[in-house]
């Protein structure tokens, strides 16, 4: 990666607070995500990693704090502005979320049909280029239920990048895939990010899969950033939450029981 690219901030988050009822999910998160990098949000299940993705894509509004993407304030956008903003964002959801009643071709063509006026031959060519790029040329007429999990994830990937977004958001992109499919998706993510100069954010709880892919990690625990840095540096961290998560220890500050205000467990403290 070129140094010039790295120094530019793509996403700037300041003092982000998000509450759900009485629970504070995120409490005072601040971060700068550099353009061209692949960044992971890691942490135990249910800690609010996906919530950050939803805040960045504007599906949720923060209770306090700001989120800025390429200088645009996402947290204050109207519905119309958000609609426009999302054309620059590609999202790969946990299970791919392909449209089950459309063929593979139509799945990838949907964003193009909605947002461009390309003539049919050009549209067809563009879809085939994306499909070939994920190594699946020739399956365009299949239905989503005829695909394996890995293939479906790659089709969803092709659909997410078909409008050439500037930012890619991945929600657990490798969950439920076999090791070969994991490597394929990982390579695709890295290559796409570097060739198109994207900025990617990956939400995951799989430590080993991510340490081979990402440039920078944020470990989120107890609503705050417990640790951050390149993966190799985090592996050596002595911070108790980070150490507990990275090494999968049961003992540590991250609790086993779900914490709610007023549970009997409070009596034992």
């Amino acid at each position, binding site marked *: 990666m070129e140094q010039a690219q790295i120094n530019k901030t793509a996403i700037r988050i300041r003092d982000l607070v998000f509450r759900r009822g009485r629970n504070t999910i995120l409490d005072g998160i601040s971060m700068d995500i550099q353009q061209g990098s692949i960044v992971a949000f890691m942490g135990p299940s249910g800690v609010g990693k996906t919530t950050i993705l939803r805040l960045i*894509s504007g*599906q949720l509004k923060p209770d306090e704090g700001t989120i800025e993407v390429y200088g645009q304030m996402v947290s204050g956008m109207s519905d119309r502005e958000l*609609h*426009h*903003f*999302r*054309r620059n*964002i590609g*999202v790969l*959801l*946990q*299970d791919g*979320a*392909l*449209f*089950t009643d459309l063929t593979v071709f139509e799945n990838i063509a*949907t*964003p193009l*049909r*909605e*947002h461009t006026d390309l003539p049919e031959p050009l549209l067809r060519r563009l879809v085939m280029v994306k499909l070939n790029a994920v190594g699946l040329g020739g399956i365009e007429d299949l239905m989503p239920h005829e695909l394996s999990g890995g293939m479906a994830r790659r089709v969803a990937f092709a*659909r997410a990048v078909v*409008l050439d977004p500037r930012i890619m958001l991945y929600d657990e992109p490798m969950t439920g895939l076999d090791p070969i499919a994991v490597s394929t998706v990982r390579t695709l993510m890295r290559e796409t990010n570097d060739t198109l100069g994207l900025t990617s954010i990956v939400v995951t709880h799989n430590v080993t899969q991510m340490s081979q892919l990402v440039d920078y990690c944020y470990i989120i625990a107890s609503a705050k950033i417990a640790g951050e840095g390149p993966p190799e540096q985090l592996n050596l961290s002595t911070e108790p939450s980070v150490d507990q998560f990275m090494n999968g220890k049961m003992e540590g500050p991250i609790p086993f029981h779900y914490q709610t205000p007023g549970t009997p467990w409070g009596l034992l403290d």
Partner: protein
Amino acid sequence: MGDHTTRLTGPVAQSGQCLLFLAKMISGIRFSSSQVRSVLQQTYLIGARSLVIIMICGFFVGMVLSLQAINALEQFGASDQVSLLVVKSLFRELGPVLTALLFAGRAGTSVTAEIGLMKATNQIEAMELMAIDPIQVIALPRFLAGLISLPLLTAMFNALAILGSVVFSIGVMDLDAGIYWSKLQEGVYFHKDFVGGIWKSLVFGGLVSLIAVFFGYTAKPTGAGVGTATTNTVVVSSVLILVFDFIMTSFFT
């Protein structure tokens, strides 16, 4: 719909949300070629695919109505009036209402289940994230297709019911065909009886399709949630069809 509106519950709030949903759909009508194509496609799936059940039911309703009418009218020696009684009640009430009830069970449920399942499998969320408005792309074509289909299906139901009545009255009960048709021609009016019923069915079409898409769109994204939404579609649309039928009949008669 924002969090502050979904938190409200109860029929009043839900009706308000439903009307807002309708307004959002209507504001999305563009008459673009892709929209027209998708409305036609849904009209085929929702309307044309309901034809067989509507036709079979229409035929038997026509037969059973004639059977009962002839039995009753015979006591006064007025069985030659059967076509008048059967066709008037069909055009004005039974055609629109029965077709709408069948349509709610056949097409309404499938629309609710389809949209609910799309929500449960994150397809709706994926669309929002692609800056595609699911209300316009998913809900609107199904709503318009229902609105177009139901009056056409009602006309078909009426036609088959008359056929059933003819088969039973003339074929089985040996009534005179000439009297049957001349009574019908004399006493049944195209505008007052037939068109009035079609207007009703247009309202029922809008009602059933609105309820079906709204309940699908607001279903809880779980198996049980989609199941409940599907049941609610049938229950709520059936009740509202009968309520609206009474209101419209009492105003326009």
